[in-house]
């Protein structure tokens, strides 16, 4: 076994992402800044050219990527030595883990996450898969007096009654931009550029003015569908 990493390098519309400092513009022309950007990556699987697959053991396969904490940009795990041509992972937390006993929810899955940057809904038990927050002159003044937008996207399909399922699996063919060569004593790094502009722009171009707060609602499905397009495999460092 040897170490491998996936790097989630957040960008915004082709530029580097800077929290609070830079104003970006979405597809429908609304200016906005970003104060918080974070998401879960889980259930990592790798496939060789011959079709054999390696699934990273589930207990070691949950990562919370936080733009505010550069140390979290790498998902770090161990794989058997070999050449991997395809990678897949879930954006969010699978339904099984979302309903597991609390003793199995440690580390980034601890539902203790604080109210401000927590990634867990207490009132409707489940994880928030992705959070994007910031300000926009187009957002209406909220009860706190700010012009903020808040996207908290989650929903694992429901426990006793079916409801929205925003669990998204991303599968990337690595051959075009570099397969991952796992070798003893080296750490292959699969480097993604993650364009958070895709949260707003895509099949649905999201208006911040019309949807300043998207949380557990039917509309959240549009945003989750949008962000499946945000992962660009840029290169692999072997």
């Amino acid at each position, binding site marked *: 076994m040897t170490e491998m990493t996936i790097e989630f390098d957040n960008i915004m519309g082709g530029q580097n992402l800077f929290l609070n400092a830079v104003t970006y513009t979405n597809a429908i022309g609304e200016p906005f800044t970003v104060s918080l950007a974070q998401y879960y990556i889980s259930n990592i699987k790798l496939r060789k050219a011959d079709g054999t697959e390696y699934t990273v053991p589930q207990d070691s396969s949950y990562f919370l990527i936080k733009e505010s904490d550069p140390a979290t940009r790498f998902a770090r795990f161990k794989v058997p030595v070999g050449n991997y041509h395809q990678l897949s992972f879930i954006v969010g937390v699978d339904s099984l883990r979302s309903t597991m006993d609390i003793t199995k929810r440690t580390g980034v899955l601890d*539902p203790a996450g604080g109210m401000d940057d927590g990634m*867990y809904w207490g*009132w409707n038990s489940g994880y928030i898969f992705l959070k994007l927050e910031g300000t926009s002159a187009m957002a209406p003044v909220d009860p706190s007096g700010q012009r903020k937008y808040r996207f908290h996207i989650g929903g694992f399909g429901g426990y006793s009654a079916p409801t929205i399922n925003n669990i998204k699996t991303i599968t990337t063919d690595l051959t075009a931009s570099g397969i991952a060569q796992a070798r003893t004593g080296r750490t292959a790094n699969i480097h993604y550029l993650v364009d958070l502009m895709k949260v707003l722009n895509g099949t649905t171009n999201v208006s911040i003015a019309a949807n300043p707060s998207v949380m557990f609602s039917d509309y959240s499905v549009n945003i989750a569908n949008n962000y499946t397009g945000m992962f660009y495999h840029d290169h692999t460092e072997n």
Partner: protein
Amino acid sequence: MNKKYWIVIIGLFGVLACSKEMIDRFAGFQQPVNFPEPVYNIAGNEVTKEAFELGRKLFYEPRLSRNNTVSCGSCHIQSSAFTQHGHDVSHGIDDRLGRRNSPPIMNLAWMPAFMWDGGVFDLDLQPIVPITAHEEMDETIPNILNKLRSHTDYPGLYQKAFGSSEITTATTMKALSQFMIMCISSDSKYDSVMRGKSSFTVEEQAGYTLFKQKCNSCHSEPLFTDNAFRNNGIAIGLNNDEGRSEVTLNPLDRYKFKVPSLRNVQFTAPYMHDGRFLYSGSRVRSL
């Protein structure tokens, strides 16, 4: 002294010795014979005296709130069947008010979903909601864990309960669950009749017959709830609380709330999800 008195005194001591033994022996979770199997995974959190007592201490621990003023027991008062007597909607930190009535804590091991809208599917996850709710305890779990870690008693109590003085989200929630699932209502007159230990009076029997005809389809025996979510036809509340549909996003679930148990009903007033009925008779009249 008269021989008869001696017999009485010895008999009395016998009773005392017996009840002392009863108190000292902690029986753990006992399945009432006329109840179904519990929903809660008892095997995953076996009730011990030490963890139960830790859970009880946590339940009455005001440090679980932001300014150490409100405990679980503030809105779940034992003498009112663990409800907040005299409050239509729950009254929390800084005199803030919630939007729903505090439900009793009773027979939770048999309850598949919690809160009036059923948004919480595991008892171990339930306390996170009131602890973090703005109008209830307004605290964070990391803060309470730190408060408990720096307390003189808690590390030792966790050590006794779970074999480690480490205080985690999981052990804290498991201890609270142990206390809550032990709040069992299974010794009413009804239960004693069902177990063949006594019998109803003529009036009680008539009431029971009527109940089975008119009420039992939702307030099903022996828990006196079917744990379903129903719109019972009362007017939409002034705050337009949509209930179950908030967690399912299903328009058909609008204005549905969990059917509450009728056990201890004489202590759980006021009634309904928003406490709008002060007397049980008002609900019957509304039917």
